[in-house]
C-alpha cells in the first residue's frame, strides 16, 4: 500500500520496488557519475550556508503559509512535467525541467524546452544514459532549444540546424551550483531558497528534479520531485521521495537563466 502526501505517492525504503520501473517498461537512463567528474571548467561549488535541520519544520510551514515555495510557483504557472517517452535521457530531462522552473521564477513566458536538443548532441545521437552535470555543462555553453525547433525526444541530427541554434542561445543557464554528493542538507537548503535541484539517484538508475522540501510527518522529511514519465505518473507527474531515497548521488542547481521572451 503506497502512502500518499498531498495526493502524491511517497516513495521510501519499504515500497521503492513498486516505482522502480517506468510504467511502460521502458528505460530511465541515468549513468553513475564518474568519480572525477565535475562541470568541465565551469564548476560552481555549493557556497550557501546550510539551513540547520532544526529550522526545517518552521521554514516549511512559513513557505506553505506565504505560498512561496518553488512548487507553489510551478503550480501557479502550470509548468507541466516532461515525458522522456522511452529515451534514456532522464538525466537531461531533469535538468531541462529545472531550467523551465527557473524561467517560471523569472516570470518569463513558459516555453517547452527540448531535452533531446541537449542530450542527443552530447551522446553523439545515441540513446544513452548520462548524469545531470553533463546536461547542465552543455546548457551553460550552448543553451537548450525549444520544442518548437527540436521535438522533445527527437534523436535526430536534422534538428541541429540554424533555426534551433538561433533559438537555443536564448535558453542558457548563467549561474548555478554544484552540490556535494550524498548531501541531503545541501539539497534541503537549495529547496528552501526555491532553487530547483536535478538529483541523480543510483538506487533508481534515474534522475529527477527536486522542487520542494516537505515534512511528511513530524520530524520526517522528503522532497517533492518532478519526474519525467509524463503527467500520468504520480500526481500530474509529481511524487515524493523520502530522505533516504532523495539523498542525491550527484546534484546540480541552476540559479539563473537568460531573460528572454522567446
Amino acid at each position, binding site marked *: 500500500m503506497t502512502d500518499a502526501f498531498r495526493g502524491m505517492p511517497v516513495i521510501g525504503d519499504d515500497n521503492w520496488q513498486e516505482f522502480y520501473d517506468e510504467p511502460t517498461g521502458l528505460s530511465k537512463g541515468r549513468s553513475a557519475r564518474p568519480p572525477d567528474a565535475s562541470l568541465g571548467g565551469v564548476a560552481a561549488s555549493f557556497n550557501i550556508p546550510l539551513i540547520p535541520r532544526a529550522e526545517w519544520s518552521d521554514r516549511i510551514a512559513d513557505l506553505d503559509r506565504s505560498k*512561496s515555495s518553488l512548487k507553489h*510557483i510551478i503550480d*501557479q504557472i502550470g509548468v507541466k512535467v516532461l515525458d522522456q517517452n522511452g529515451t534514456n535521457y532522464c538525466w537531461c530531462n531533469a535538468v531541462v525541467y529545472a531550467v523551465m522552473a527557473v524561467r517560471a521564477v523569472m516570470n518569463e513566458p513558459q516555453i517547452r524546452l527540448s531535452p533531446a536538443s541537449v542530450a542527443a548532441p552530447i551522446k553523439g545521437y545515441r540513446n544513452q544514459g548520462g548524469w545531470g552535470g553533463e546536461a547542465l555543462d552543455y546548457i551553460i555553453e550552448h543553451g537548450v532549444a525549444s520544442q518548437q525547433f527540436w521535438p522533445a525526444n527527437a534523436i535526430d541530427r536534422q534538428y541541429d540546424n540554424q533555426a534551433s541554434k538561433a533559438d537555443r542561445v536564448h535558453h542558457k543557464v548563467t549561474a548555478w551550483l554544484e552540490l556535494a554528493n550524498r548531501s541531503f542538507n545541501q539539497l534541503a537548503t537549495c529547496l528552501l531558497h526555491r532553487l530547483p535541484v536535478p538529483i541523480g539517484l543510483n538506487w533508481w538508475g534515474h534522475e529527477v528534479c527536486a522542487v520542494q522540501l516537505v515534512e511528511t510527518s513530524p520530524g520526517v522529511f522528503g522532497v517533492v520531485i518532478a519526474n519525467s514519465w509524463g503527467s500520468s505518473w504520480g500526481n500530474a507527474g509529481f511524487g515524493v521521495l523520502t530522505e533516504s531515497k532523495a539523498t542525491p548521488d550527484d546534484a546540480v542547481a541552476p540559479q539563473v537563466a537568460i531573460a528572454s521572451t522567446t
Partner: protein
Amino acid sequence: MDRRNIAALVYVIALHFAGISLPIVSPLIDAVVPSVASAPVKSDGFRVLIVEDVAARHTLPKEQEAALLSTEVSGYLNAHCVKSPSGQSEWRRLDAKATIADSETPFTREAMNIKRDSLPWLYAANGRKFFNGPYPKDVDSTLATLRKVGGQ
C-alpha cells in the same frame, strides 16, 4: 500627500515652533511618486520589475525572501499587469546579473539599468505614478506598495 502625511507635517511644524527638531523626516515622503515626469522608465500600463541577487537570497530575512517569491504577490501581478500579445503578464523577477536578451520587452531592458542602492529592488510604474525603491520587507507591505501603483 495623503491625510496621514498632512497630519505628520502639521505635527513637525508644531514641534519646530516648540523648539524641538526631528532627525528623520522620510515618513513624510510617500515613496510612490504621483508623477510620471520623473519616472526613470516610462510605462504605458502597469509593469513591474523585481531585481534580486539569487545567490544572496539566503542573506535576506525570511519574511522578505517569502515576499520576493510569494505567489500571493505574483498572483496580484498576474491579475493587474498589462499583458503581452501572447498573454504573458508583463512583470519580471530577474537576477541583477542576468543576461537580458534582445527579445525582452523595452520596459524590462530599460528598467534593468535603473540605478539601485540595494537588492532586492522594486520598480513599478503605470504611466501615471511609480515606485522605485528597496523591495518591501514582507508580503503585506509588498502588496500595499504594489496596490498604490497598480490599483486594488
